[in-house]
């Protein structure tokens, strides 16, 4: 018996040492939360569960997009008429880029080479070279484009047009809108599954989520959620969709297999931006009114932490680094 115990203990010690070593070498993913009313971005160390840095970002920061390679974080600044570039290693604001008057929704391509900025006012999407930070192209879409997301294969870009009640599918090779699908009333935030097959769109005015076939752009389902749904995120191998309900202070949980609502989690007041941690289990929600971030466990459907951020946290977009 005692002979057997020794190697187990040893193995455990080795594992603990390895884990410690790994945590020193590889930092935990960081969450970048835009605080619109305090003109700043809070950086949360998801391993420590607290804010480790706050960066001043002028221009009422709203949208957030972390480059998949983890080197840059882009933050839209509607009053700065463009976006700000944060160097994630230096944790510093390194550039402020003018794009157009109503820059709000922002996303990065899966290869980190392009930045997409939707303009609420000009009804366009600007394609920006992440290296040179210059606008390569401007694509006309529907009215008041808001959330946008690229397909995992980097072939398509999907944009929710709030006032047109539609989603545009842009061919990234030609830079043209290939198809437009009608969705619910006032679509705002959207997400796509990891296979690029399904889009989930939160419709602010009709209090529901439209599920679209990403290829055919056909509606698969419309699912009722809470009041003023803002954005959505997938977790647990795309099996669960979590949707922030601004006016209910809650997150609706949808089963992706049955496309029905299966749970409701109470978070802070006016939850807005929502992003899934790379562990695919924890989901972070920015509560605009409370100026906090709720950390949810998508498995147990519980709030496991609430982190104080800055005034008016919005974090609209993919705000956690890989």
């Amino acid at each position, binding site marked *: 018996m005692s002979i057997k115990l020794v190697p187990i203990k040893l193995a455990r010690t080795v594992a603990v040492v390895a884990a410690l070593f790994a945590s020193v070498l590889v930092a935990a993913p960081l969450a970048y939360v835009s605080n*619109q*009313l305090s003109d700043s971005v809070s950086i949360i160390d998801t391993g420590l569960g607290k804010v480790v840095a706050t960066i001043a970002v002028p221009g*009422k920061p709203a949208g957030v997009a972390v480059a998949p390679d983890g080197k840059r974080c882009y933050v839209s600044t*509607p*009053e700065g*008429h463009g976006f700000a570039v944060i160097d994630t290693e230096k944790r510093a604001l390194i550039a402020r880029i003018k794009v157009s*008057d*109503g820059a*709000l929704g922002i996303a990065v391509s899966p290869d980190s080479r392009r930045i997409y900025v939707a303009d*609420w*006012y*000009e*009804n366009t999407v600007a394609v920006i070279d992440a290296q040179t930070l210059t606008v390569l192209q401007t694509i006309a879409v529907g*009215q*008041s484009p808001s959330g946008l997301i690229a397909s995992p294969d980097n072939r398509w870009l999907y944009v929710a047009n709030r006032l047109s009640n539609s989603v545009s599918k842009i061919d990234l090779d030609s830079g043209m809108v290939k198809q437009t699908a009608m969705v619910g009333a006032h679509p705002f935030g959207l997400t796509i599954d990891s296979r690029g097959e399904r889009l989930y769109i939160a419709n602010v005015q009709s209090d529901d989520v439209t599920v679209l076939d990403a290829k055919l752009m056909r509606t698969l389902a419309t699912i009722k959620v809470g*009041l003023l749904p803002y954005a959505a995120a997938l977790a647990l191998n795309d099996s669960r969709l979590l949707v922030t309900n601004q*006016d*209910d202070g809650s997150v609706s949980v949808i089963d992706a297999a049955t496309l029905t609502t299966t749970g409701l989690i109470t978070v802070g*007041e*006016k939850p807005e931006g929502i992003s899934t941690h790379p562990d695919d289990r924890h989901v972070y929600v920015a509560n*605009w*009114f409370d100026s906090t971030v709720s950390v949810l466990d998508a498995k147990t459907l519980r709030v496991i932490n609430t982190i104080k951020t800055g005034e*008016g946290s919005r974090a609209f977009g993919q705000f956690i680094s890989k």
Partner: protein
Amino acid sequence: MKKIALLGMSALFMFTSVANAHGPVRQKAEEEITINAPAEKVWGIIKNYDDLSWVPGIKSTTADKGNTKGSIRVLTLDAGGTITEELKKYDDKKMTYAYKITDMSTAKTITHSGAEEKVPVLPVDNYAASIEVEAQGGSTLVSWKAGYYRAYMNNNPPAEMNEEAANTAVTAILKGGLANLKTLAEK
């Protein structure tokens, strides 16, 4: 013919998109007060959605469906004018309700950037608020929270319709209402 109509439409479309310049930033106001009275008594004063007599400046209130969700109330102000609000949430057990402004009368018309602008009686847009009563031992904590935009939706707002005007007006209502509620409840 079709082409002309289309051209006309796109011109109109461009015009409206210019008029609705980039959205202003949502504002918030939050006020709290501790009242030396039991929570039930405090909630009793404010619980009826059709009774806002505890808020100074409100002359009368009517609601079409009482305390049920969707109930529309119309507030008539001492200074003249009305505010229409829809009940979005009501929870008697948790002693809280939430509502939204759906319509307002115009306080005055001003000229700004060569256009006539109607200043609503409360200089805000897209206003949503909630009030909550919470027992804290023998006393009661009441919190009143509101999220809203300034009244002017274009760039470069006039002073009557900017963020400062919105914040000042909302804060005055929340503060005044809570102070008077304290007076009434501690009587």
